[in-house]
């Protein structure tokens, strides 16, 4: 069956450290992988997109990697801040069709 798994446990890290979140997928062949941020009571907000032929993408303090052999994406937040505390979702899209498939999300808390 198809699965998208993110860190099952909530992640707590100290301010200033690097947070690393994982997204593993099974029985998908994604051409695109996206990361979203979701705050309580609000809709997800797009952060980054990476394509299957890209290994790494950066945007300010954010970095995403995409390994199609391992079927995994890693999402890094460097120099983390309490304002980074939120739930982070990964989403896959395949080459055909118009559907996105979302993981269950990882809750991140950055402790001052």
């Amino acid at each position, binding site marked *: 069956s198809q699965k*998208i798994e993110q860190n099952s446990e909530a992640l707590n890290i100290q301010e200033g450290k690097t947070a690393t979140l994982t997204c593993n997928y099974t029985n998908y062949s*994604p*051409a*695109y992988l*996206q990361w979203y941020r979701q705050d309580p*009571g*609000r*809709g*997800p*907000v*797009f952060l980054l*997109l990476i*394509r299957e032929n890209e290994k790494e993408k950066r945007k300010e303090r954010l970095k995403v990697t995409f390994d199609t052999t391992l079927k995994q994406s890693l999402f890094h937040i460097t120099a983390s801040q309490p304002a980074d505390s939120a739930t982070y*979702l990964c*989403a*896959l*899209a*395949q*080459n055909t069709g*118009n*559907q*996105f*498939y*979302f*993981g*269950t*999300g990882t809750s991140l808390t950055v402790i001052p």
Partner: protein
Amino acid sequence: DAGITQSPRHKVTETGTPVTLRCHQTENHRYMYWYRQDPGHGLRLIHYSYGVKDTDKGEVSDGYSVSRSKTEDFLLTLESATSSQTSVYFCAISDLGAGADTQYFGPGTRLTVL
């Protein structure tokens, strides 16, 4: 929220009653989506639309119908609500509909079916 509104924002209804949720956009994006979000399941696609009167099913479409008579409005209808449809419903829009396109999400509707 990128010019997307959802109404109502909260609704409590009883089993067996019909419910319609509305998504309205001011961005003139071609694609519109309805998702539900439940603990342990993440966001799951219910239906989406790729143009006026053009819709298709997502992975959890049973018990739901949609309509899009204008570019800016996408309606989700629960013909006869059940307790299993208690959830938070999000509308999203995108311009191109492909995986490289960003989805913009609305603020959500919290629906409780008693």
